[in-house]
């Protein structure tokens, strides 16, 4: 297949839109036709239109560099990434299954610890996790759900299999960009949407708002509920999203200083009309900063006493503190067993095979095969502190060899996946670039999954780094109905 008379070369990877024989994949046929008939000049014009729309709409992200906060325009590639409705239905079922099981797991860990007693997950893995918070023991949030908002990272390997790479259960971000990407692409290619049946994503703020109301304390049932979004403030890299979500849900965006815990252990909002009771807090602050009385006493971002209020059942926190215990990369390796244990089902979406360095035999394997593997620390996010074996130098291998031996519990090893690609504008031609996918799953009274999610794409040829903080871009993600 060709784009503007330039042959599009699918490499040794699975391409989301084009088969290895060069023909368009069935679900992407009309989209590929559309773009292959577009002259390079028009492609560039459309990309330019998208870029200006992003600037005009103020869609930005903040990076912290050399002591300064810089607002950057959000990078969006104009060629959508397309998945078939049939495939998506299976992925969606897999994501729902996974989050249900993970929430049962977290609730169990902080209460009966049956899964440990039944020797499915070893106690020391949990007890040594920095994300297992003693202050959360004995609490059971509404519906037994701890991680209400989950942003799992999915990747597709060379043979077309989709894996869950990680479960982001703490404060996953990116959903605002998923929503804005769709808005921008609709403006730039209005006709495309008339010709395709693309599942909508715009309901997310409503679904988020309904979920947050559903988990409010039972004592507030029947009353008008006060939901707020708690942000660390304008210097946070995800502030755009915090402000966006508060605005689209029509709730207050607050900082720690806006909230206080009364002598009655309820949480109040400081307003010019006086104190107003708060029912649910969608907090975008990490666990350890949330309450200086319980965790980091130097935190000025949190609210003193909020853990007391939460433990008393007087306020809902989303996600619940301590949810991150299931977000540990060593715990990740047990997820298939966790799903089987709680739901008596096999995992619908597989895990990436994972060697736990806490296990001497696994550690040995990782050390021997370091140049072929990816090594990740158990508790980092954003792609920091990891080693991509095939892309690393000898010195970096040695550095990680030492790190692994010194603290094996803190690392896992995984095979280097051949991430799938999709046509992406590079210069004035479309070229394959690696990507992943972050869908967002909400669980309160019910479970909802976004149709698609945020596709992140590495903008440099051959690169696997998709993080926007490190030069990655994004794509609108389409779930299209199969037509026959």
């Amino acid at each position, binding site marked *: 297949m060709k784009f503007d008379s330039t042959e599009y070369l699918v490499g040794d990877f699975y391409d989301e839109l084009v088969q290895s024989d060069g023909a368009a994949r069935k679900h992407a046929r009309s989209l590929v036709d559309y773009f292959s008939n577009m002259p390079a000049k028009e492609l560039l014009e459309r990309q330019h239109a998208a870029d200006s729309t992003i600037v005009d709409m103020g869609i930005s992200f903040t990076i912290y560099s050399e002591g300064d906060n810089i607002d950057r325009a959000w990078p969006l590639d104009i060629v959508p990434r397309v998945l078939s409705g049939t495939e998506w239905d299976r992925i969606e079922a897999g994501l729902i299954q996974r989050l249900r099981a993970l929430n049962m797991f977290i609730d169990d860990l902080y209460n009966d610890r049956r899964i440990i007693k039944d020797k499915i997950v070893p106690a020391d893995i949990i007890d040594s996790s920095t994300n297992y918070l003693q202050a959360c023991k004995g609490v059971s949030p509404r519906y037994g759900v701890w991680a209400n908002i989950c942003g799992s990272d999915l990747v597709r390997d060379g043979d077309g299999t989709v894996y869950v790479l990680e479960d982001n259960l703490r404060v996953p971000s990116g959903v605002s960009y998923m929503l804005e990407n769709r808005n921008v692409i609709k403006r730039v290619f209005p006709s495309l949407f008339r010709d395709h049946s693309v599942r909508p994503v715009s309901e997310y703020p409503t679904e988020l708002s309904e979920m947050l109301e559903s988990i409010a304390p039972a004592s507030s049932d029947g009353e008008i509920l006060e939901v707020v979004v708690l942000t660390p403030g304008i210097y946070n890299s995800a502030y755009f999203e915090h402000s966006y979500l508060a605005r689209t849900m029509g709730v207050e965006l607050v900082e720690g200083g806006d909230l206080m815990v009364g002598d009655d252990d309820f949480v109040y909002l400081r*307003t010019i009309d006086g104190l107003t009771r708060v029912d649910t807090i969608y907090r975008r602050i990490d666990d350890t900063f949330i309450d200086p009385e319980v965790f980091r006493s130097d935190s000025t971002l949190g609210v003193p006493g909020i853990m007391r209020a939460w433990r008393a059942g007087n306020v809902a926190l989303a996600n619940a503190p301590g949810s991150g215990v299931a977000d540990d990369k060593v715990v990740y390796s047990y997820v298939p067993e966790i799903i089987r244990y709680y739901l008596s089902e096999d995992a619908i979406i597989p895990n990436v095979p994972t060697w736990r360095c806490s296990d001497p035999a696994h550690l040995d394997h990782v050390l021997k095969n370091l140049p072929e593997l990816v090594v990740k620390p158990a508790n980092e996010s954003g792609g920091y502190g990891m080693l991509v074996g095939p892309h690393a130098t000898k010195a970096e291998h040695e550095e990680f060899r030492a790190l692994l031996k010194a603290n094996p519990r803190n690392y896992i090893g995984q095979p280097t996946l051949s991430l799938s690609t999709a046509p992406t504008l590079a210069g004035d031609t479309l070229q394959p670039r690696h990507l992943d996918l972050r869908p967002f799953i909400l669980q309160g009274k019910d479970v909802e999954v976004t149709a698609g999610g945020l596709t992140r794409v590495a903008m440099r040829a051959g690169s696997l780094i998709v993080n926007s903080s490190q030069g990655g871009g994004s794509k609108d993600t389409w779930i299209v109905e199969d037509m026959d």
Partner: protein
Amino acid sequence: MLSRAAERVYWAGRYLERAENTARIVQKYAHLLLDLPSEVGLDWAELVRIVGAAESFEESGLPDDESAILQFLLADPKAGTSLAFAINMARENIRNLRDLLPHETWENVNELHRFAADNLGQAAAGTDQFEILGNCIERCQQINGTLIGTMSHNSPYHFLTLGQSLERADMTSRVIEVAATYIQQNERIIRRYGSTLWTNVLKSVSGFQMYRQYRQPQVIGIDVVDFLLRDQAFPRAIRFCVENARKSSAALPNSDHVCNALQRVQLELLGSPEDDTSAEDIDDLVDTLQVRLADVHLAIVDTWFLPREE
């Protein structure tokens, strides 16, 4: 409306106003010094007292010459009374209010901030001082114009007005204090330079033209003081500022405490000065006014920024 947002809008109003006033007062004072011989006894140190920076300037240990003083009052971003500091603080508050204020406000205050950072050092050194300060004043006025013209006149706007009005009343009270010291000058100097002095007092609050239009043709000291204290139409007269603050407060919830505090400021302004009103009387009045204005600020903090459990 969140208390924190209310507090930030209030301070954005105060610092914007302070920046404009500081730029104007330095600009006019520099002009005044050009017109007066040294026997009048005015110097740059007097300017430090006018803007209320005497204490912090002394602590800084800087020499009290023109260049050190202007650097301190204009360009030093660490000096809490400097123009650079006021602009930084206005920007920081507005930056935190981007969701609430018209977005041009953020762009404009950012441009003001960049302009100030690039040029105030030069202005302090005496180069293009008049133009640079004039430019700062205009940029502040542009921001005010945007806010007045494009922002809904509801709670956030009322907090902005409150901050602005109180800051303005405070600055005018300082200028009146200066006028009182001029009245104390000996007769010969008053005869020769009085008109220049009073004119400058009026100009440092943009009041010369309005005074000339509505008061007698000669500019007389005691009448200038009366104008700046009690005029009901001039927007920088204390009475006008306080009335403006009262209107905004009355539109906000639970405002009794604040309105009462403002009422107590107005009570001090009753009655016109007699011909024999002395400089000490004016000093005493200004001192009382400043205490009352500080009480208003505390009442605002207490009522809206620090809500407590009932």
